């Protein structure tokens, strides 16, 4: 087993008519990982999940789980369980029977089934609810029944299709941590599909961002956020301001970039004088003040728009040449009142926070 990854997806393609849902995609996932497939609807992430579960066939390429090729294995015998987006609870069965369904199919003795159901109900904090029918439960409780049912057969791999999408915001936040907690306790490999980037960031140890059937970037949440590979990723995960320019000089690990706003940036390597570059800067990495600090990457701006959100204020400011910058100022400065509409001030950012995009 050593050396080969737990799940190996190699050059998998799946077409529906003229549409290529998954396009020559390869991905390795390690045992015990909480991996997130992130992408907008229609990017092929659910198709990939359904191929892992065995509900969709693979046109070309292969999927291996725990070293075994899955192409001829039907859903019923895969060491995989799936939690559906709408939970797909059996409406005519009690919570207990829902959870026990897969255990009965596995032919476990009755006493063992009962003890496992009790244990699972405790795990998802639904003890005492076993006698209820799905329609007597709240959305959050149904989600937990679906989780318990999917975990009942102790799958090697659990697939979760938009597990939190049907919950309201407050409940979603609590459930996120619970899900991570359960995953860590059971050490089962989880693959979560979501379109919600915040959810992906909170849950996953690694995220694969999908677009048009391909994986654009696979990295840890922090790397994806701080070092996006291209502007699609930068834009998809959070807010950014884009700047365009041309490299004037590259020396001493620093790039001098000409443009409407001249920028000094840390050279990630591979850039030379004369290259056209696109840069991204996260809003919380730009500071805004009335007085000039006199450092590098400082630019005189006018506040065009400002929105107070409680924790912070979101600004949209215009720099030289009409370049718009989006920035966020934490709401913690006392004394100095925040800048208001139409005021001029100075926006500044660190050379290390300039992300150079390759696209």
């Amino acid at each position, binding site marked *: 087993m050593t050396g080969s990854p737990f799940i190996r997806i190699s050059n998998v393609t799946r077409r529906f008519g003229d549409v290529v849902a998954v396009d020559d995609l390869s991905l390795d996932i390690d045992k015990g990982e909480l991996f997130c497939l992130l992408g907008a609807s229609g990017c092929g992430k659910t198709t990939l999940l359904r191929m892992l*579960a065995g509900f969709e066939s693979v046109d070309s390429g292969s999927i291996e789980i725990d070293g075994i090729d899955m192409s001829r294995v039907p859903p*019923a015998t895969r060491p995989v*369980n799936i939690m559906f987006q709408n939970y797909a609870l*059996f*409406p005519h069965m009690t919570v207990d029977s829902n959870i026990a369904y*897969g255990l009965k199919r596995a032919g476990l003795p009755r006493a063992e089934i009962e003890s496992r159901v009790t244990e699972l109900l405790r795990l998802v904090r639904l003890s005492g609810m076993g006698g209820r029918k799905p329609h007597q*439960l709240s*959305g959050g409780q*149904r989600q937990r029944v679906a989780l318990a049912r999917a975990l009942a057969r102790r799958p090697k791999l659990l697939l979760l299709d938009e597990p939190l999408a049907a919950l309201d915001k407050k409940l979603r936040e609590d459930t996120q941590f619970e899900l991570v907690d359960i995953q860590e306790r059971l050490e089962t490999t989880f693959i979560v599909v979501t379109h919600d980037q915040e959810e992906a960031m909170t849950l996953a140890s690694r995220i694969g961002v999908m677009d048009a059937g391909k994986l654009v970037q696979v990295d840890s949440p922090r790397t994806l956020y701080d070092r996006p590979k291209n502007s699609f990723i930068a834009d998809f995960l959070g807010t950014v301001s884009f700047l365009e320019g041309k490299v004037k000089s590259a020396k001493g690990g620093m790039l001098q970039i000409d443009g409407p706003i001249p920028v000094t940036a840390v050279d990630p390597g591979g850039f030379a004088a004369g290259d056209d570059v696109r840069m991204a800067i996260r809003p919380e990495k730009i500071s805004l003040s009335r007085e000039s600090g006199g450092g590098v990457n400082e630019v005189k701006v006018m506040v065009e728009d400002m929105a107070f959100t409680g924790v912070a204020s979101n600004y949209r400011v215009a720099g030289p040449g009409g370049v718009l910058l989006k920035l966020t100022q934490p709401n913690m400065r006392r004394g100095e009142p925040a800048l208001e509409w139409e005021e001029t001030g100075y926006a500044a950012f660190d050379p290390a926070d300039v992300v150079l995009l390759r696209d």
Partner: protein
Amino acid sequence: MTRGISWPALWLGIIGFGILYVPVTVMVIYSFNSSRLVSVWAGFSTKWYGELLENDAVLEALGKSLWVAVNAATLSTVFGVLIALAFVRLGNFRFRLLLSALASMPLVMPEVVTGLSLLLLFIAMEGLLGWPAGRGIDTIIIAHTTFGMCFAAVVVQSRLRDFDMSIEEAAADLGARQPYIFFSITLPVIAPAVIAAWLLAFTLSFDDLVIASFVSGPGSSTLPIVVFSKVRLGVTPEINALATIMILLVAASVVIASAIIYRNSAGRKAAAATGGSGHES
């Protein structure tokens, strides 16, 4: 007008329901008439019901009708579920539209045509295969199944169409295979529609006169046939009593069927309303 009662609408409603139910009500009332004359009221009596219970010909016909209806309804439901599954599950196969039109044709086919064509088929089959030997209860059951299953298919199809396919996938994912999935998951979920379809097919079979007259043979007269032949000799209060009992039977099954359908759809709506995650499509 202040309470929102619209008098014209109320009157229209009264007139409409009157047209529907006054004749039936009159018949029910006259079934309790002590006089032998149908149009003269001579006081309340249940003697016609008593006489009915002693009329062996009627009781025998009732027994046959029930036997035919139970069998035809059961066969209709089985075939109806199969037709519905085929149309809902097989997706867009070739000639789908044509086939689904053909499947619902018997719903609008004149009964005389259905009856006559079945009669000709049975005669031809008897000549070629030696079965069915003459016409009797079996041929009536077959005839009633041919149109009953179309109604059953329509009822079951509408339920299957908003059936959440992912629960079958969930069952497969949890280690189940067909046909176990069908019997443990699909059938229980669509059970209300299946029961409603059975009751509908039962009612249609129990009521049928036209088709049954074509395909029945000597000694296999169902209740509607007996009633019809009795009426030709003049309407007696006994017939009124018999008709009242038939109304009760049919009404009961219609009420049960509607109650099941209503409760089921109300339950689904309630499930969809709580938590917003009970959508089944």
